[in-house]
């Protein structure tokens, strides 16, 4: 009974890790091997239902969906990680300066972040994609920008909490440069909160990319992107109902894994919530 209970407690961590490691392995494999060429069209073989030849069937151009799903992990991780990098680095910088310096810098930065947050994320992303142009990198930039306000708020509250901590005062007394205090002393202390926020950002980036694809923008074809595939599958919901479950399932599974992982980290940090 005790063992069951322990597993239950850690189920978030367990499933989360399993999912992410699984997808990572698929991604690494996809660099060397996919059953078929991901962009090769074979129109006579279009919309072939799943079989031993085509594990997940073929799409409307006769491309192998399984191969495209595999390759799609690269797009997913590229968009996700890039979004996280942009979101966290700017978020920490803005939130850190606001929290550490306080005063009018704090007021200015945070009002600006409030304003950015008032924009529905998908709309801002839509406009930014229009400005930057579509593609993996540009999509990630747009999604990264909309992630900044949330992360900067978390970073700010962390820096505010630690700003007057004894170890910070001590460091100041012995003449450590403010830059070093911020990034060498305070940042490591709030890193777990940032990790949670980054994991959630990764997950929301996946969902936002799918939403952008629904609106016709986002990662460009023929690059396999789960969001785009999910959108394309809408036309075949009845005729080839299996088509939609591969990309839909992949997005759901990865996002679920990321959420569970972030919850596990949060539980670990904050024992009260266990």
């Amino acid at each position: 009974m005790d063992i069951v209970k322990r597993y239950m407690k850690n189920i978030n961590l367990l499933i989360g890790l399993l999912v992410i490691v699984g997808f990572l392995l698929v991604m690494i494999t996809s660099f060397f091997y996919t059953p078929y060429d991901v962009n090769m069209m074979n129109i006579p073989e279009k919309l072939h239902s799943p079989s031993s030849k085509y594990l997940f069937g073929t799409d409307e151009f006769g491309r192998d969906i399984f191969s495209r799903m595999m390759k799609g992990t690269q797009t997913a991780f590229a968009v996700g990680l890039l979004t996280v990098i942009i979101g966290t680095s700017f978020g920490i910088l803005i939130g850190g300066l606001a929290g550490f310096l306080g005063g009018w810098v704090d007021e200015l930065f945070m009002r600006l972040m409030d304003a950015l947050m008032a924009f529905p994320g998908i709309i801002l992303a839509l406009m930014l994609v229009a400005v930057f142009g579509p593609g993996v990198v540009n999509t990630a930039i747009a999604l990264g920008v909309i992630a900044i306000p949330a992360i900067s708020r978390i970073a700010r509250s962390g820096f505010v909490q630690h700003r007057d901590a004894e170890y910070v005062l001590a460091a100041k007394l012995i003449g450590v440069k403010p830059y070093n205090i911020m990034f060498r002393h305070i940042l490591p202390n709030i890193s777990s909160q940032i990790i949670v926020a980054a994991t959630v950002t990764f997950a929301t980036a996946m969902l936002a990319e799918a939403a952008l694809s629904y609106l016709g923008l986002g990662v460009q074809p023929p690059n396999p992107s789960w969001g785009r595939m999910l959108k394309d599958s809408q036309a075949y919901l009845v005729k080839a109902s299996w088509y939609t479950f591969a990309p839909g399932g992949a997005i759901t599974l990865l996002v679920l894994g990321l959420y569970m992982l972030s919850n596990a980290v949060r539980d670990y940090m904050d024992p009260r919530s266990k």
Partner: protein
Amino acid sequence: MKQTRNWVFLMLLLLLGVMISACSNDNDKKDTNKVPTNVPVTTDTPQEIVVRINDDPDFLDPHKATASISYQMILNIFEGLMAPETDGSLKEGLAESYEISQDGLTYTFKIRSGVKFHNGEDLTIEDIQYSFDRLMGKNGGEKMSNNFDNVASTEAPDTTTFVIKLKEPNSNFLYSLTARQAAIIPKSNDGKHNENPIGTGPFAYVKYAPGSNLVLKKNESYWKEGLPYLDKVTFAFQSDDQAAIMSLMANEVDLTSVPWQRVNEVENSHHLSHQNNNSSLIVTFNETKAPFDNIKVRQAMNYAISKADIIDSVFAGYAVPLGSNMSPAMGDYQKKGLEDKYKLDVAKAKALLAEAGYPDGFKTKITVSSHNDIYSNIAQIVAANLKEIGVDVEIEVVEWGIWLDRVYFGRDYTMTTIDLTGRASAYEILNDYISTNDSENFFLFKNEEYDNIMADVLKETDTAKQIAYYQRAQEILAEQAVSVYVADYQIVWGSDKQVIGLKSYPFWFHDMSEVKFSN
């Protein structure tokens, strides 16, 4: 003080919203509770139809409206001196008869009598004069169209005759007198043509709810005896094609276009009718930019791109291949056989590329609009096809607004794909978008012989000779490999009841005047 009050207003927007949602529009209520008075008791099918349209009209004012989507709907409200026919010819509309002088410069129209506007007023010669003056910017306003630049004068010698004099003969002129280009509207409604449009057409305007629907009702005193059959037409706006077909299945709309891939889902439960769209779907190039300034490269593209692949996977087979701008829907005007001029031939395409100086291919970019998935899907096939001859195509999907700005008007592109919407006349189909003297020539195609043909055909009054000109023009388009002319796709209409009398025109127009349900 006033300012504070307005601020309070803004703050209360939210609360107001909740309250309105609780006690909403009284108008709506009246509309639905009103018992229809003129329904013939003989039939048990309600003579009301809900037609799904992708988007809102740009304007309801027929002189201001420009987007082809608007005319699909509002041509039911308005009429011109001439009226379009389904085969691309013209018949008399508000003009009972007309005469053209020997020199082709003077057009004399006899105006139909007993025609009433929707507001009950009689159609008078003043209204016709007013409509043309308004279009030409002669009663104070701005000129609303370039179509009448060639008009020297207009006059009304008596109350039933209207005369238009041209500066130069133009065999296509009558085409600019349909409701699409020159709707006749009542003078008494001046200044309100957009808010409360009034015409003489089979249906009268009831209300327009932006983003939701446009409602029309039967014109009880329509001059064509016995028409229209329907009492009410609602154009419901729904942009998502996939959601639209589900609305059809759920009986929430009566008539909608069915995405080609999903035709077999409704073919057993619904009535289908096929309409040749008369548009030409093309993959085209900026012909002033290397490498597409080279005719051999353009021919290579024609040999390498598989029309069959596109027709099969994008249109699920519901399309006919083209060889020029002209679709088979235009009957005799079309030059037959051009669609086979460039048969899929990868070896030949490679050879042509080598001759043009690109033995190893090149890199290029195709810019397509995101407003309809067909464009990005076609781009994917084009990229896959061209990869076979060593041409590396990057696909760039942009919003419709950006596409218009950058590609269509800005001409800052190398390759694109689009469907050129159908026009009422062969002249417009061949002149618009392509001819050097047309401002919409976004391929920047330039060919002297072609331009001469387009100028000469306007002076030609004999139909057979006009057709010869038009056919030669199509040959030039094919020879010069101006574009890859892919296909004219069909629109498959699905309806829940048996709808009869749905006519298909060579341009987008949902003519509801003769539509009725049968059991």
